[in-house]
């Protein structure tokens, strides 16, 4: 017999659990039923990035030579290729898996543990596969957009998938010679990733009028593009003169309504969501207050 707690997890995974007020709204983004929660998380993450991550990443960039930054990126990217090979196989891309295995082996050996990307010079291109894409290939819908504290944008499908990816990434287990080294290694990976994201973040600041919407749409389209291995969607409905928001989203709207009653039964969980969001919002205000005090 399925326990209620399991049902909650299933509902969350398939993105049908809605916050108490979002489904009731006449107009809502079908991909983002938790927008109220997500926006608060987004603001919180921005504050953390602004006051904590960015200063550390800038310091790292200032004291680390370019070749070393590239080497660190190559190192973690090479470890990630272990995930890529696994997911190649899970998606039945056997030819690609052979190529990616060759890439991993070559960079680990001739590339001195992955610090040098020698494989690209012999034509072994970097492929991008992860468990979320595997789930997409298996026919599991992407679910709803979700922003989690410190982890950033994802979907209700990619959130559990990323846990699988972490478990199959050797970087999660690097602990030579002692276990306490593991934490700094993970920190280094995150730091380098943040430093490399500087250009993209600068662009968002320059181009976006609503940074939250801009990030969400870019993220969802980028993920969709990865799932289709770069194939362009030739559906040009959006280019029609009389394009209608309602007709474009009607199917999704119907789909959402089918689950509305069920979702409402989990309103207490949804309230917890809102409460969590409020907590992070308060934390966000406190960070801003501390910053103001610091300036004074």
């Amino acid at each position, binding site marked *: 017999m399925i326990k209620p707690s399991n049902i909650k997890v299933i509902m969350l995974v398939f993105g049908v659990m809605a916050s108490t007020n979002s489904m009731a709204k006449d*107009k809502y*983004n079908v991909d983002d039923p938790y927008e109220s929660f997500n926006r608060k998380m987004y603001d919180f993450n921005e504050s953390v990035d602004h006051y904590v991550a960015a200063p550390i990443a800038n310091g790292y960039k200032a004291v680390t030579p370019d070749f070393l930054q590239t080497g660190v990126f190559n190192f973690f990217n090479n470890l990630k290729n272990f995930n890529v090979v696994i997911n190649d196989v899970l998606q039945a891309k056997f030819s690609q898996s052979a190529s990616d295995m060759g890439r991993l082996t070559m960079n680990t050996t001739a590339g001195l543990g992955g610090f040098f990307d020698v494989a690209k010079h012999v034509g072994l291109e970097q492929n991008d596969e992860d468990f979320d894409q595997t789930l997409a290939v298996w026919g599991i819908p992407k679910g709803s957009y979700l922003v989690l504290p410190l982890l950033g944008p994802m979907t209700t499908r990619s959130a559990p998938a990323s846990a699988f990816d972490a478990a199959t990434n050797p970087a999660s287990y690097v602990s030579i010679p002692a276990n306490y080294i593991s934490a700094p290694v993970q920190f280094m990976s995150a730091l380098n990733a943040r430093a*490399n994201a*500087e*250009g*993209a973040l*600068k*662009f968002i600041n*320059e*181009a*976006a*009028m*609503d940074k939250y*919407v*801009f990030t*969400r*749409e*870019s993220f969802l*389209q*980028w993920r*969709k*593009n*990865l799932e*289709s291995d*770069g194939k*362009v969607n*030739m*559906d*040009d*409905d*959006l*280019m*029609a*003169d009389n*394009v*209608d*928001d*309602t007709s474009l989203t009607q199917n999704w709207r119907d789909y959402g309504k089918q689950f509305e009653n069920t979702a409402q039964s989990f309103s207490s969980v949804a309230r917890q969501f809102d409460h969590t969001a409020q907590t992070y919002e308060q934390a966000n205000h406190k960070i801003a207050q501390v910053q103001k005090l610091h300036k004074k």
Partner: protein
Amino acid sequence: MRLKKLAILTLSLSSFYAASAFSQEESATARQIIDKFQTELIHVMKDGKKLGYAGRYEKLEPAVMNSHDLPKIARIVVGKEGEKLTEEQQKKLADVFTRISVASYAHNFKDFSGEEFVIDSEEETKNGGVVIHSHLTIPDDKPVKFDYMLKEKGASWRIINIIANGVSDLALKRSEYTAILQRDGFDALISQINEKIDNYAKQ
């Protein structure tokens, strides 16, 4: 190099809207339209520093207007919200739309380090449109895919959407513009676009 690549990749995510009708329509295939536009972009990039922002803007304005169906793009990005706008508001939107499109191109295509556009293939869409698949090669970096969706207009073709590495500018803009219109209203949207144009000119 990474920053530069990002800037080039994302230029299509923010740019490419200009307005007005075309007074001199010439017969051209979709491929010719893209080829001509990309050639002009490379020229502007090569002379980017010498031209400065104002010079790039001046050069790119006709290139953008002669390759994009800007009135149609403007209608699409505001979606159903556009029906609520008065005629005067629609004209105002078209005007700022023109300026931000050219401004973002002028801001992002500012220098040159050996980049080259290559047209790969073309395909017909189910509704009679054409998609031109192309990519931008960047020395010492990964190429950036640019897929242009065009519709026939008179004797020629015009760009309606640009998809850069899988991200559709039309869908992105539509989400942003309709969200702002619904939440903050028309004046706020115009004000935010103008602010972006000013920022592009300053940087």
